[in-house]
């Protein structure tokens, strides 16, 4: 059996994989040590003829207590504290540092509903809710090598945008705006899924993320904008909200 994570196509996904790998290694060692001790006790200290009594101790000598607390503290520092420091650093320098000030970031308004995703990108005017917006259903088109900055809302129940190949997910919640950013490092077609159970057809609430090289993306965008202008209808603009106030 070959156990693998989905292919990582993101700039920061290796940080997630690193945390998972570190945990697997350290907790694996701790578990193996405890299991070894347990099996040794079972092998050597089983009741048998000539050995019907245990060693009468309450384990309350200072040596016993020191041993227990030392092992627990060493484990806590080696596994938990080390990991928490590392995670805290990654969150503050990468995952939670949103590209608000980055003019190159692709901004996308995501609207979730039972059971579909709508992605809206501002056109060349950089403003949402205008005639050059590009709106796609269950398809998110992005360029490789630029941050993608999503803000999400839900129109009915809680959903969760899940990108397995980018190692991330974020809930879309009615009455709130949530956000997420990531950056693709590879071109390709990747699956989008809903992770939060959202009703009977939850399992069908998938979509496609298409990552293209910058020139191809621009070409796609130009075509999509033309289509949008041709088909623009004031009524469809109501699906947007204002990016700036939607914090």
């Amino acid at each position, binding site marked *: *059996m070959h*156990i*693998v994570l*989905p292919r990582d196509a993101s700039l920061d996904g290796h940080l997630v994989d690193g*945390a*998972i790998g570190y*945990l697997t290694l350290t*907790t694996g060692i701790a*578990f193996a040590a*405890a299991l070894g001790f*347990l099996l040794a*006790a*079972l092998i050597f*200290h089983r*009741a048998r003829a000539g*050995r*019907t*009594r*245990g*060693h*009468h*101790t*309450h*384990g309350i*000598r200072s040596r*016993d*207590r020191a041993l*227990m607390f030392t092992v*627990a*503290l060493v484990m*806590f520092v080696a596994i*938990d504290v080390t*990991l*928490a420091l590392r*995670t805290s650093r990654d*969150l503050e320098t990468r995952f*939670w540092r949103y590209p608000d000030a980055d003019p190159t970031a692709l901004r996308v308004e995501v609207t979730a509903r*039972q059971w579909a995703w709508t992605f809206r990108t501002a056109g060349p005017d950089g403003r949402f809710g205008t005639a050059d917006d590009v709106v796609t259903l269950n398809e998110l088109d992005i360029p490789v090598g630029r941050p993608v900055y999503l803000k999400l809302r839900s129109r009915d*129940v*809680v959903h*969760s945008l899940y990108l*397995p190949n980018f190692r991330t*997910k*974020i*809930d879309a*919640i*009615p*009455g*709130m*705006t949530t956000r997420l950013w990531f950056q693709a490092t590879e071109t390709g077609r990747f*699956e989008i899924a*809903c*992770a939060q*159970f959202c*009703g*009977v*057809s*939850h*399992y069908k609430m*998938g979509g496609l993320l298409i990552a293209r090289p910058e020139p191809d993306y621009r070409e796609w965008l130009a075509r999509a904008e033309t289509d949008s202008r041709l088909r623009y209808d004031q009524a469809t603009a109501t699906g947007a909200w204002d990016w700036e106030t939607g914090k």
Partner: protein
Amino acid sequence: MTAEVEASDAQADEIPPAPKGFLRRFVFSIDHKVIGRQFLFLGLGFLAIGGVMAMLIRWQLARPGAPVPLVGKLLFGPAGGVISPAAYTALFTMHGTIMIFFAVTPVLIGGFGNFLLPLMLGARDMAFPRLNMASFWTMFAATAVLTASFFVPLGPPEAGWTAYATLSTAIGAPGPGQTLWVVAIYLNGASSVMGAVNYITTVLRMRAPGMTYLRMPLTVWGFFLTSILNALFVPVLAAAMVLLFFDRVLGTQFFIAGTTPGAGGDPILYQHLFWLFGHPEVYILILPAWGIVGDLLAFFARKPVFGYRVTVGSLIGVVVLSTVVYGHHMFTTGMSPLLGESFMLLTMIISVPTSLLVLSWLGTLWRGAIRTATPMLFCLGMVFTFGVGGLTGLYLADITADMYLHDTYFVVGHFHLIMASALLMSLFAAVYFWFPKMFGRMMNEGLGKLHFWLTFVPLNLVFMGQLVIGYEGMQRRLYDPSVYDFLKPLLPLNRGISHAAYLLGAAQFIFVLNFFWSLAAGARAATNPWEVGTLEWTVASPPPHHNFDRIPIVVRGPHELSHPAARLLGRDWLGQAEVIEPAPAPSEPAGPAPAPGEPA
């Protein structure tokens, strides 16, 4: 001491007469032993129903869209025996609800808590026997309402056992089924709080003379601390249910957001309320299991608990910490960074008392004379699954790893290793261990051991398999994972997990057979078949209506096994209330004398 003896004599005079008449004895009984058995049978019945639901869920994941064999036509007739997406949704919703609220809670807390607390503390009954009866019948009413929810228009509840708003409001679940679910959970909670108040008072006020807090068996500590958490946090769940009920029935908007941010109610408020209860709930269920396993490991290793005070301190530490960690269920809701990191760190701190607990178990086993009877096998199995389940919790406490693993089968595998495996193991250990005291007959050892191995192995295959498919990215609660291309390669693994699950399910028939056969024709149980010193083993099996002819006077802790002084008595244990005749000045000590300061 004299005063205590007099008090005990006074109590001896007021033995209440045993009730006569069928209804008073077996139905509306106020005897904690009868109520305990009522909870036990109710819970085991629902455990079977929840288990069948698990089998149906596994069938769908192994062969999406294939007709269910044997029972398919009966259960899913209109769909030609196929589980529809709506039926699948109802199945996992009710599987979770039933297992947590209507199976494990009544068996472990209602059943064993009731039966054991007065017997282990040296009391004649609970502090409030009538409240105890009310607790059972409230639970019974809850099960009736829950059962009714299957048979209403628009179908059974379908919002998952967590019933997140707004899916659980009229927006996502318009039918009356979800409303009945809310009422059933509320009644279930009321039953739990009645039990909790009773248990706390019983431990505080009904301990036999000499039964100090640090002489209580760990099982009692487990139930005591669980009751404190129940009394504090089940009302939070009840509050969430009341608000949800208002939203559904009266048209309020506590959890329903308005059309613009900031207006109307807040669906996240529901998650806060639910997990403020929901995370302590995990400990509410596992604390009695920890207590039972702590005691039984000592009993069957023939050694005192290693570091009793450290263990009790750890249990209390977990109780305190469990109240401030619930936010790790909500890392993906975009919570504020300060809050997120605080919850991460607090969650990780829980690993300190938990590892102390595991170290105490290992220390207890070391240099023991381990007897591998059936209850002990289940305890050892519990230690194993709890180890895997506990350590995988760290992955979900870490915000970075949780971004990927949240809402995947990794979560399902993790909490089933705790809630299903570790809990089920200790639950079976408790049944095998206290069955003789409850019913006066021994269970069959051979069948018990067979049951253990056919449970332990498939159980780990199922839930560790779930960890693997979650690691590979599969979300929970998917009707048909093959909708996604990246999940298609996981079908063989899913099928393997399902086959292990069927084996696990089938193995439970051995338990059912053993249980009922032993009930009818098992060997008569002696007063103290396991040769241990806690008070319930000083009374007949099964105990008389009033438990104790004379209230015992406790003189030592619960785990005096392989005690040097017991050698003179020709055995290796001392009872908690056993007074040893002062031995004629020993010329040579029979063994190393207990160090000063040890709990004698």
